[in-house]
């Protein structure tokens, strides 16, 4: 819970000082010289923001005005849709979510998953870099595939959609960036604090200070009068989400204390005829598939983590499978909530931009979800095996 709360304190620095907005504008203006350049710029921007901002809705809110203006420059605005607009908005939705999956601190649901796993395997050491080593390359591959599938397969760009339709349109974004003035000392401090926190997280195995303690240190510096960057009133912590998470954590602890997941899993597996002789690949397919496609029905990543991670842990323990062999791959699939507008808050938000229809988002989303399933299977046979998670 503390890491959850403190991540928002740290992210508030970047939002309040507008460092996040400045970075996004600067990057897209520098590297977005063509349609492809723009798509790749947002890919990088989303990955970088995901390192620092632990809420997908906050990232979507920061980027929305920027990509809406760019979509208008390329001819998609006020109900007029084209494939540039569809790609730009849907890919940002995909990138906002998959970017979050690359980092343990990318989302509160990731942190809950890790907490549930560590609650079950208290002697097991698992931290920021363990998640990063497995998740980051997978996320990058999915993001690149997301660009390819969008631009080349499902919503191919017509030649006229690859050129700006409004003369001097990007100059307006340049004016927005210029209007922000020079980088302020507060912005530099916020970036320095966050880079420091990030370096401490990445090197956790060497210095031994856990992620929560590092976040405490960063938050204290950020809030310190005279030295810091934000006051308490500037900190935008969504307390209703923190309380929601607290309930989920408590439920997870209660399930652990009564061993309920293991008891229920044992009964469920017996009923389905799944035994210790069932090949691991069948269990892997079943749980990764359940986790992924549950994203079509549920609205909450926290809930999906709360339901499926304990069940996966229960199966691992019941059948003496290696720790995290199912629960970690399942955790890597938490953020796949981009198919339908009700699947997540960013999905609902971006749908209201009116750049795509339900069938557009379903076509793109379900394709990427199926690709993600194939990728997690490949990952289970390769990277996760090499890292010692899957047998």
């Amino acid at each position, binding site marked *: 819970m503390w890491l959850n709360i403190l991540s928002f304190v740290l992210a508030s620095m970047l939002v309040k000082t507008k460092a996040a907005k400045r970075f996004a504008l600067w990057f897209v203006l520098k590297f977005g010289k063509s349609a492809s350049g723009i798509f790749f710029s947002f890919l990088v921007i989303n990955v970088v923001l995901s390192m620092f901002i632990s809420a997908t809705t906050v990232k979507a809110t920061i980027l929305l005005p920027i990509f809406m203006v760019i979509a208008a420059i390329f001819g998609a605005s006020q109900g007029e849709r084209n494939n540039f607009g569809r790609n730009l908005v849907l890919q940002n939705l995909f990138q906002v979510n998959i970017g979050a999956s690359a980092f343990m601190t990318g989302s509160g649901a990731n942190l809950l998953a890790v907490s549930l796993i560590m609650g079950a395997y208290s002697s097991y050491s698992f931290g920021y870099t363990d998640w990063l080593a497995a998740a980051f390359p997978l996320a990058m591959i999915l993001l690149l595939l997301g660009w390819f599938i969008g631009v080349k397969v499902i919503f191919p760009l017509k030649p006229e959609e690859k050129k700006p339709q409004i003369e001097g349109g990007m100059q307006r974004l340049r004016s927005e960036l210029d209007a922000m003035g020079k980088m302020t000392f507060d912005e530099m401090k916020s970036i320095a604090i966050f880079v420091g926190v990030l370096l401490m997280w990445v090197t956790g195995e060497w210095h031994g200070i856990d992620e929560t303690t590092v976040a405490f240190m960063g938050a204290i510096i950020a809030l310190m009068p005279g030295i810091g960057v934000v006051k308490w009133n500037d900190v935008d912590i969504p307390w209703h989400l923190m309380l929601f998470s607290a*309930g989920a954590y408590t439920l997870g602890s209660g399930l652990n204390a*009564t061993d309920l997941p293991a008891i229920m899993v044992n009964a469920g597996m017996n009923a389905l005829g799944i035994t210790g002789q069932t090949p691991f690949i069948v269990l892997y397919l079943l749980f990764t598939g359940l986790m992924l496609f549950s994203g079509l029905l549920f609205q909450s990543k926290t809930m999906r983590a709360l339901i499926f991670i304990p069940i996966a842990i229960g199966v691992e323990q019941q059948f003496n499978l290696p720790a995290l062999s199912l629960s970690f791959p399942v955790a890597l699939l938490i953020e796949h909530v981009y198919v339908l507008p009700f699947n997540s808050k960013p999905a609902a938000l971006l749908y*209201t931009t009116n750049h795509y229809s339900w069938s557009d988002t379903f076509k793109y989303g379900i394709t990427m979800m199926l690709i993600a399933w194939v990728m997690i299977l490949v990952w289970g046979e390769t990277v996760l095996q090499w890292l010692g998670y899957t047998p």
Partner: protein
Amino acid sequence: MTEKNKELDQEVQAFDPLDMNNYKVEKLPKMEKSGFEKWMARLGGPLAILIFILIYWVVDIPLFDNLDFESLSDKAQKRLAVIGEEAFIRACYAMLAIFCSSIVLWITESVQSYLTSLMVILAIVFAVLPRRKKLLRNSDIR
């Protein structure tokens, strides 16, 4: 041209698609709940209460009643040692009831998610955690 048409015309002309301020979250249309979602929200509360009552007080679950205590995890064994077998079985019933009813509340959004969480925490305190009096009695401290 009527006044209203003139106003609308001016609004359309005034909208600058390249002005980032036009795309603030507050200015985007809100997604309204569909009829189905509204019905789910109405039914969610009573359904959650019914599920809790059925699981905790009505239904017998042989899986819990005939629990093999030896197969429990170390953490669960420690809890068993503190509260005893009967209380452990009731705790299992309670956790399942709380889990199922909270999932219903969260999915249906019958009440706000944070409120469901607060109720979950309270329910676990009352239904799962041993009372201080009982712990003191068990340890014979007066």
